[in-house]
């Protein structure tokens, strides 16, 4: 049995590591020590579980989407309802875990980056819960697309700082958060929101998100009496996907598919499909970690595109890169049009409006479920709810 742990330098195979300015190395070492101290600490884990239950409402249900399954005429589709957790996405799991760690480390100021705003909202929420100062960096293009989440963060008492560099999206927000951290290392805890960045973040975020897969595994065994044939999740940085997949990695019969954003075309700049070599994906180093990366021939990081702000990112978590390299996880694409169609299909068929990010996973299920038998099951991670996207979708459907 493989426990899929990184080595002590934070590498899974050739992916991961720590590529940061020297100033951040001592804080990262401090964070690693602090994290490993709580990882097996009963009191910490009990407090984490308590908040997941009483504050966030876990366990989230595993819902059998019968009408969708019947309509497609293939596999039975189960939705892992992360959209029902507090703040409306899986991001709260990691935010709760890391805020408890930040408190143990005595940090008073919390910074975070956000793409779609879901991680920013989750971070602002846990900061409000514990009365901690909160600064969230967000690309100005994402602020425009996700205006509702900006207001939610402000309501929760966070300061949202717009980032105007690059494409003004998630990658640029991470750059600015790293610059803040390097300047304020003593006082500040960087609450990174995806399974990305320098060690120990990819490991720590995955651990906190693995609650999704642990619950789902138990729930499907209770409901179906056996493991599913397939797991499907969207992959931006990759935290909801790794959270669902990880507890199933040793279940060899379970296929896992990560769905990247195909955007509006296959040329560099038109998508966020990092594993797509023809589209400009290549192994490289960005924001502290070695992984697959969309870049030009000179090693400059490419602009990306997706209708979904949460998937609009040039790199992918290093553990995903490793699991792709050994063939354990397959990666597929759903483009903007397919995701938008899936957004509407799930809304009408099941009465559930999914986030545009999660709609990419649904889109892939719409393609693959009909090819499977009704005796087979798929669990798809419904990583977030779509309320935040309703205005944007309305504009797109109106052809604006």
């Amino acid at each position, binding site marked *: 049995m493989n426990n899929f742990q990184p080595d002590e*330098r934070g590498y899974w195979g050739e992916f991961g*590591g*720590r*590529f*940061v*300015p*020297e*100033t*951040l*190395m*001592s*804080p990262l*070492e401090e964070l690693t020590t602090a994290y490993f101290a709580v990882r097996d600490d009963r009191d910490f884990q009990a407090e984490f579980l308590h908040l997941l239950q009483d504050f966030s409402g876990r366990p989230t249900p595993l819902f059998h989407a019968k009408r969708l399954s019947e309509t497609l005429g293939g596999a039975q589709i189960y939705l892992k309802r992360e959209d029902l957790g507090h703040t409306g996405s899986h991001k709260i799991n990691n935010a709760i875990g890391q805020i408890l760690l930040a408190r143990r480390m005595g940090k008073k100021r919390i910074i975070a980056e956000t793409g779609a705003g879901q991680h920013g909202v989750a971070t602002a929420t846990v900061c409000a819960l514990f009365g901690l100062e909160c600064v969230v960096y967000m690309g100005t293009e994402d602020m425009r697309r996700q205006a509702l989440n900006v207001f939610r963060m402000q309501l929760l008492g966070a300061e949202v700082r717009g980032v105007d*560099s*690059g494409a003004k999206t998630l*990658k640029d927000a991470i*750059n600015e958060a*790293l*610059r803040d951290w*390097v*300047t*304020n*290392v*003593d006082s500040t805890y960087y609450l990174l929101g995806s399974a990305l960045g320098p060690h120990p973040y990819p490991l720590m975020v995955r651990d906190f998100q693995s609650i999704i897969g642990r619950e789902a595994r138990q729930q499907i065994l209770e409901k179906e009496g056996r493991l599913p044939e397939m797991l499907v999740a969207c992959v931006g940085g990759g935290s909801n996907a790794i959270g669902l997949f990880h507890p199933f990695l040793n279940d060899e019969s379970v296929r896992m598919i990560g769905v990247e954003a195909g955007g509006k075309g296959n040329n560099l700049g038109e998508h966020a499909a990092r594993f797509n070599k023809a589209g400009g994906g*290549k192994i*490289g*180093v*960005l*924001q*502290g970690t070695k992984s697959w*990366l969309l*870049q030009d*021939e*000179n*090693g*400059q*990081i490419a602009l990306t595109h997706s209708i979904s702000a949460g998937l609009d990112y040039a790199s992918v978590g290093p553990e995903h890169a490793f699991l792709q390299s050994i063939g354990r996880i397959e990666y597929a694409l759903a483009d903007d049009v397919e995701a938008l169609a899936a957004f509407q299909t799930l809304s009408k068929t099941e009465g559930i409006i999914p986030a545009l990010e999660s709609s990419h996973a649904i889109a892939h299920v719409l393609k693959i479920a009909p090819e499977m038998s009704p005796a087979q099951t798929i669990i798809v991670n419904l990583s977030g709810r779509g309320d935040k996207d309703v205005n944007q979708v309305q504009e797109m459907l109106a052809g604006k």
Partner: protein
Amino acid sequence: MENRINKKFIQLKAENRGGFIPFIVAGDPNLETTEDLILELAEKGASVIELGVPFSDPVADGVTIQASAERALQNPISVKGILEIVASVRKKGCETPVILFSYFNPILQFGLENFAEKAKDAGVDGILVTDLVPEEAAEFRSILAENDLALIMLAAPTSSDERLAKICAHASGFVYAVSRAGVTGARNETSSDAENLVQRLRNHTNLPIALGFGISTSAQVTETWKYADAAVVGSAIVAEMMRLSPDIKEVPGDFVERIGEFAGNLLPKA
């Protein structure tokens, strides 16, 4: 060793002077002008020239150098193109040490061995990779050493003594001490952390120590020389370049001369 960096620091020591290391971003406002600037800065007394490789995601840089990198990237720019201008200044007889200041990805994509060979052929003397810490540097260090190129390591006020020992074990040429926790950018005063860091580094290395981040005036250079072997001035010069040529397509005729004058004024008079 024949390396120009070592020779330069031996010479500075013999003359009992501190070193002056100006920084510019290659390709801002364009590569031809960068070549002229290298020659001009050498002429004005630069001990070593630090040539920035522009990168799309410069997390260690403040707003000034970010903006300069963005200007440079408006034109296609490659590591190969940057090495060509270094080769060209060497052909013109300039013997001032040149080091590249880069993020890791552009070098990784160029190929580590390819880079070391081509950089040596071009007449580059060393490289500083801002996001390559000792734990990740072993392979690149040995490739560079085979080509007699220095790997300039950064040390920060947050580095523990254990880390400083690791950093110095990997360093060659000189050690770059970062004056404060933060990104690059001009300040009027140097942090008090700086002297402390330089003194701590002396316990771990006999290499020369240059101080950078936040040094922007001649007075700060003088102050730095009291305890460090050289001072790096980056953002102040880069800001002056952007002020003199706000549009990279309309570079004033006297631009290079005026930047030379500006940099020359940062060098304390003997």
